[in-house]
């Protein structure tokens, strides 16, 4: 008789209905198979073995040559800055193989058509993804650690008698691991969006080039003896790892993997989707309809992003204020404060020149508009980070100025008069624009259920444009009018005519 297998439905630490321990156990079944498969593939093993065993020895030779060169040219003190560089390079080369394995395990399996039987099993998407990601990482990471061990062993026990700090070793190990994770998770994203190894290898340059540049930057940091900066890079890499991992886990779903048949850029479909979302459904006939049925309903979807942006604004404003107070080296010098009358006169001149001037309205709209546009564009390439950053920087500057003891003579009333009237309109416009940009940048990491990455991005782009044209732009125009025609008069009143 047939056996009916039951799968438990709920658990406290469930991931897609499986308890955490079970998820890891199942993921390791996949990992074990994949690793075994990798070890049988000479195309993978030959470079790993070469880079693990041969490259550290070559690096040893290079170290000797460089050391002799430094010594003979009277630059012996620089050797200590140079020596930590090579373990990192020795560790990086085998790790770069993880990219090849990740591309091979995902796209390769798709290409060989062996993915569907695996997808037809009760393994969850997370188990498959984690299992495969581990499999792509384990052999190269092991090779990397062994390679570094061989190289360091040579330096420590060989002629150099080098005694590296423990912190340096830990730093290099963490950097190497974080970089491997970035490459693997990036490769998963790439491989789930392509259907051939050829296409994914081409796209992999988007991973290997930035990571190589990062390694060069890390090398520069090491040589210039600013190793504390590497900890910031580690934090940055971990954040990118988390974002890419979340994106990869979201993208690595059965539907996305099986639904994609060919690598094609379907611009017609994308345009239709974009235009349909931007224009709205058949019930949109007038401008009022467009706002009612198409633009305003976007605002609730931006609510989580708005909360993040608002928190960031408050944080940077307070941060700017606090920095101005506690860092005397960043405060406006007393000499400037001494020329209060001069400062005040310049301030009044600016107000007289810019106030009641229609050109100032255009200038303000263009300035604010292009900053928000640039922030939105950069947001796409930074998972939304720059979208928020550029929009909130002015708030930090305002907080910083407000915190300057030298400007205290202007009084809070003057500041309020100069900022509040148009800010009542400009701040909501900025928050909405930054939220739309943040959502646009983040959407690729977590596309909504049932939507592919490209589809979700096109829809979010249409939403951002809708909100930009329908809400942000009119608010910016209104804010500029207030800033030019109302704010100067209030400031003048605050300054006593």
């Amino acid at each position, binding site marked *: *008789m*047939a*056996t*009916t*297998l*039951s*799968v438990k*439905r709920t658990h406290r630490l469930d991931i*897609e*209905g*499986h308890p955490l321990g079970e998820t890891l156990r*199942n993921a390791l*079944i*996949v990992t074990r*198979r994949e690793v075994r*498969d990798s070890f*049988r*593939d000479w195309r993978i093993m030959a470079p790993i073995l070469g880079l693990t065993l041969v490259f550290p020895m070559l690096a040893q030779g290079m170290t000797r040559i460089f050391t002799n060169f430094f010594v003979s040219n009277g630059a012996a003190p620089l050797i200590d800055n140079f020596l930590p560089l090579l373990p990192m390079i020795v560790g990086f080369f085998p790790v770069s193989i993880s990219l090849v394995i990740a591309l091979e395990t995902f796209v390769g399996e798709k290409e*060989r*058509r*062996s*993915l*569907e*039987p*695996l*997808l*037809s*099993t*009760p*393994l*969850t998407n997370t188990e498959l993804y984690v299992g495969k990601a581990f499999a792509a990482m384990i052999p190269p990471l092991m090779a990397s650690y062994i390679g570094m061990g061989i190289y360091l062993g040579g330096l420590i026990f060989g002629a150099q008698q080098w005694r590296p700090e423990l912190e340096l070793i830990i730093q290099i190990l963490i950097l190497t691991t974080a970089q491997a994770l970035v490459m693997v998770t990036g490769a998963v994203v790439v491989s789930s969006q392509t259907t051939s190894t050829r296409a994914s290898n081409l796209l992999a340059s988007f991973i290997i080039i930035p990571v190589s540049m990062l390694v060069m930057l890390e090398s520069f940091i090491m040589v210039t003896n600013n190793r504390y900066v590497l900890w910031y890079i580690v934090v940055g890499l971990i954040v990118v790892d988390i974002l890419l991992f979340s994106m990869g886990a979201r993208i690595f779903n*059965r*539907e996305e993997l*099986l*639904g994609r048949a060919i690598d094609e850029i*379907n611009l017609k*479909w994308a345009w*239709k989707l974009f235009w349909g979302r931007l224009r709205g459904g058949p019930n949109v006939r007038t401008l009022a309809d467009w706002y009612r049925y198409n633009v305003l309903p976007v605002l609730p979807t931006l609510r989580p992003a708005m909360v993040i942006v608002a928190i960031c604004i408050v944080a940077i404003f307070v941060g700017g204020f606090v920095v101005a107070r506690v860092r005397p080296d960043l405060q406006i010098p007393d000499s400037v404060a001494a020329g209060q009358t001069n400062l005040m006169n310049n301030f009044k001149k600016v107000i007289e020149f810019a106030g009641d001037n229609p050109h100032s309205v255009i200038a303000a709209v263009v300035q604010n508009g292009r900053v928000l546009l640039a922030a939105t564009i950069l947001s796409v390439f930074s998972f939304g980070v720059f979208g928020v950053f550029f929009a909130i920087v002015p708030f930090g500057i305002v907080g910083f100025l407000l915190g300057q003891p030298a400007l205290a003579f202007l009084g809070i009333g003057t500041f309020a008069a100069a900022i509040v009237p148009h800010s009542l309109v400009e701040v909501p416009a900025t928050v909405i624009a930054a939220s739309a940009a943040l959502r646009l940048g983040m959407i690729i990491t977590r596309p909504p259920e*049932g939507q592919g990455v490209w589809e979700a991005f096109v829809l979010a782009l249409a939403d951002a444009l809708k909100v930009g044209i329908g809400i942000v732009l009119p608010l910016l125009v209104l804010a500029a009018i207030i800033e030019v025609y109302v704010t100067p008069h209030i400031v003048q009143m605050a300054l006593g005519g």
Partner: protein
Amino acid sequence: MIEAEGLTKDFKDFRAVDDVTFTVPAGSVLAVLGPNGAGKTTTVRMLTSLLRPTSGRASVAGYDILTQPAQVRANVGVLTEQHGLYERMRALEYLDFFGRVYRLSAQERRKRALDLLERFGLADATNKRLGEYSKGMKQKLALVRAMLHNPPVLLLDEPTSAMDPQSAKLVRDAIVELQRDRRTIILTTHNLNEAQILADRIAVIRRGRIIANGTFAELSQRFVGDPVMEIQFAQPLNGVAKELASMVEVVDSAELSLRYRTPDPKVTNPAILRKLSAHGVDVITLSEVKQSLEAVYLQIVAEDEEAEGQAQHGNHTQR
């Protein structure tokens, strides 16, 4: 048991499966026939919870494909269109991997794997890498993989397509045995003879829609008409032929044979025999002319094409 109701799947602006509804009772085989790209594989993928339907619902082995995907997949054995084996592995190692995934115990994994390999004639090839297997052997191993965890439901896509006649018979016998064992099976195939032999019901799918669904007898009756009987005589009929023509619809006649169509052979055939006997005509054989599924299938598709042509013509005229 499998129940599908209004299953629809859209890929961007293309509708791959359109409002598909059917039921496959426990212990029966449904053959899904249709041209390439008709939506058979997409339907199977939805039933395996690999693709999420755009609309509609289905349950497989009592589990909902939308809300209980893991349970569905745990209770289904799938033979995919492409065998998709890991070519660097060996058979036992390969089956052990899938056995672990399906949570079989070590003992169970080994026993099931060895039994099935033996049954499908692969026992001698367990030490070979799967890359060295012939196409038919790969297909058989893929079927073994689908049956490994003893699932109550099997979704088999072209199970004998790459096999020699002997292996194909082995697989057909296995399917019959599974059916006897109360497994529910969906068989998608282009081999109409196989479908006719194995299936309890047949569904024809075209352009994502089910255009016919029923037992072979029902479909045959509906699309190619009443059964046709053939009678062979020892001597020419002479004048009796006219009398017979008044009793049944004669579709073909020769000097010593006659073919006629009848809605009710149980009534008509004895009457014909009585008439011939009364006229002293000796009957050598009386048998039903077997309708092939191929004829029925081609008729179903032709009628659908015609209906589609008429609908398109109607649309053009309206414009």
